[in-house]
């Protein structure tokens, strides 16, 4: 099979124009007689983010190189449609239906620039706990194989290599999204502004899908001390707990952290489409209230992960802070937003909520949503805040 299809798999290279040298490597495969090639968006994202800085090339098995044009993208499923001239009229067939559990599959690509490689593995179903549909493939996909095809025993593409968690745990984009991308029939290369409009439209539709779904239901709750707080809000959100009680420390904490496992690659420094939240209940038996809250002032901001991005892509955060009452509880809430400069109408949200009840206990809740509309950010933050309650 390798001999039959090897000419239809290429290495995709992103070339830095100034240095005329490769700056990113991935794989791709031919899907039409006129030289259309599928790869991952994350392999060629430089063409969208910095078109003046990069160009894309393919390298085939005969050692020939040629220019690649970017025709269309699907950032939600990390796919890119490219076109190259000069390929013989042979291409892969795409299989839309999913394989049977345990079916033998072959993944192809160029790991670590070592040349075309074929890896055997099995189909292990779709990820059950994922916001974005992914095939679980038990085979070793390594750096450089991104964008390569995974084939069934008949040589049909069932998925596109996209990520790995190591130790033969790898992930594929189901082939039906390749078919959907090809069906859009974008024939002419687009400029960065047009691609940004496409990305904005895809991100907006994507966040509308899952945020609307989450807001339409009551938030699942969990207990943390005497508080009832938002718990596992959906299957695709993974939650972890932890208790910290060091003998040297004068306070204790119980924490509950949740996040989606996947996010959407937008650039090397920016990911989007994720949900993260946490609740940490701090308490003390020994510290005076003044001492305890002085320490908590430092702790409240300490657990925040940076959101990434660059000044070109993102604005700085702007925040509103005030005491907020709901039922009989008063919290201090800081609500912050930052804007995607290239994608109109999309924002990242960070909310910090400090439940002010006892003198020796403080609940710190944080919420981070990336790539959502302002209305969805506000509605989600509010529902999240209203779902924090003290129930002794």
């Amino acid at each position, binding site marked *: 099979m390798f001999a039959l299809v090897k000419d239809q798999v290429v290495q995709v290279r992103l070339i830095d124009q100034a240095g005329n040298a490769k700056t990113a490597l991935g794989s791709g495969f031919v899907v039409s007689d006129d030289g259309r090639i599928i790869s991952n968006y994350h392999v060629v994202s430089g063409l969208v983010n910095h078109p003046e800085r990069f160009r894309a090339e393919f390298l085939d098995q005969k050692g020939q190189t040629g220019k690649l044009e970017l025709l269309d993208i699907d950032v939600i499923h990390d796919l890119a449609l490219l076109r190259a001239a000069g390929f013989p009229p042979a291409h892969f067939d795409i299989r839309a239906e999913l394989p049977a559990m345990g079916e033998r599959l072959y993944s192809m690509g160029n790991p670590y620039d070592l040349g075309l490689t074929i890896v055997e593995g099995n189909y292990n179903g779709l990820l059950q706990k994922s916001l974005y549909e992914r095939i679980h493939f038990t085979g070793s996909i390594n750096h450089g194989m991104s964008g390569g095809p995974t084939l069934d025993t008949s040589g049909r593409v069932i998925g596109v290599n996209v990520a790995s968690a190591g130790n033969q745990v790898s992930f594929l984009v189901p082939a039906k999204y390749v078919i959907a991308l090809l069906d859009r029939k974008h024939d002419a290369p687009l400029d960065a502004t047009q691609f940004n409009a496409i990305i904005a439209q895809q991100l907006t539709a994507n966040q509308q899908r899952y945020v609307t779904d989450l807001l339409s239901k009551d938030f699942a709750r969990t207990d943390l001390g005497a508080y009832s707080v938002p718990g596992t809000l959906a299957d695709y959100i993974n939650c972890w707990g932890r208790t910290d009680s060091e003998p040297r420390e004068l306070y204790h904490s119980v924490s509950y952290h949740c996040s989606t496992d996947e996010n959407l690659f937008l650039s090397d420094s920016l990911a989007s489409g994720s949900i993260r939240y946490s609740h940490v209940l701090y308490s003390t038996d020994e510290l005076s209230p003044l001492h305890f809250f002085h320490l908590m002032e430092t702790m409240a901001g300490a657990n925040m992960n940076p959101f990434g991005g660059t000044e070109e892509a993102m604005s700085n955060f702007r925040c509103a802070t005030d005491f907020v009452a709901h039922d009989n509880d008063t919290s201090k809430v800081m609500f*912050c937003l930052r804007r995607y400069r290239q994608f109109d109408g999309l924002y990242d949200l960070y909310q910090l909520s400090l439940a002010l009840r006892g003198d020796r206990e403080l609940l710190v809740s944080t919420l981070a949503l990336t790539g959502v509309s302002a209305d969805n950010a506000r509605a989600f933050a509010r529902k999240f805040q209203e779902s924090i309650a003290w129930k002794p």
Partner: protein
Amino acid sequence: MEAVSVRGALELLDRAGRVEQRVVIGTVPVRIGRAYDNDLIVDDIHADAHHAEAIVGDDGVPVVRDLGSVNGLRRANARGRVDAIALDRECAFTIGGATMRFRPANYATSAAQPMRSAGVFAHSALWAALALIACLVATASEAVLGSSERFNGLQFLNAILVPLIIILVWSALWSLVGRLLVHHARFLGHVAIVSFGLFLGSAITFVLSLFAFSFSLDTFAGWVGTITAFVAMTLVFSGHLRLATRLRSRSALIAGICAAVLIAGSFRVTHMVGMQHFSPAPRNAVTLAPPGWRMRSPESTDAFYAKTQSLVDELRDETPLKTPVEK
């Protein structure tokens, strides 16, 4: 030599205004110059050997008269040479680069100061000790409040040793300045001033932070450091200048304010430059204190989240970044 009815003293001053030499005018002429046969010898290269003399003028008033010197006789703080200056009241004039002062015999002198006794010394030492203790207690409290672990004796010592050394070195430097300018070190006075300033700085920071929490003025919290630095530095610099120079209280205060504006202002500018840079996380500080300190009524969730629309408007109205020109 002739006796004169109006008497007084001619004083040669050094650059700090201190009297270097003094000649009581009992008889005239009193000869002034660089030569060793003068009554008042001026050790200045711009003074003539026989530069000027004090005599009785035609109208019977004593005058100091230029003897045709190279650099002439000039009134202090005035331009242009003069031939003679009447010595009928307090006046100052220059002989080359040296400043001289005449004070008449009836010049009012201040009341005698009691000699420095053990009691007075104990008084200033007491103030220095009190201010130093207050400052070190404030510093140690900050260290304890900032620590999540139980403090032991060594940690306490560590928390107070660094500020103590800084206070002593800082006071020693000001004492040196005072010793050079006014010939008094006043080390304990400087210790009291800087200790009080640091204590006040801690106290202001603490009170303003509580105020920011109580009234939910978290944006104001960013100004706490600047306000504290300004107030404390104004008092500290004014105090040091008053002790270590001949500046009067008002001038010392103005100089202190200028120094504080410069330093606190430069901190503020540095802070503002930092805020202009891109940050991948919110930079806003959240002030926190025991819930009982809250003075402001909470907003309803409706009101609070409606208010956040203004953030969206502000973000939308931000000036866009300049994009590189496409070639």
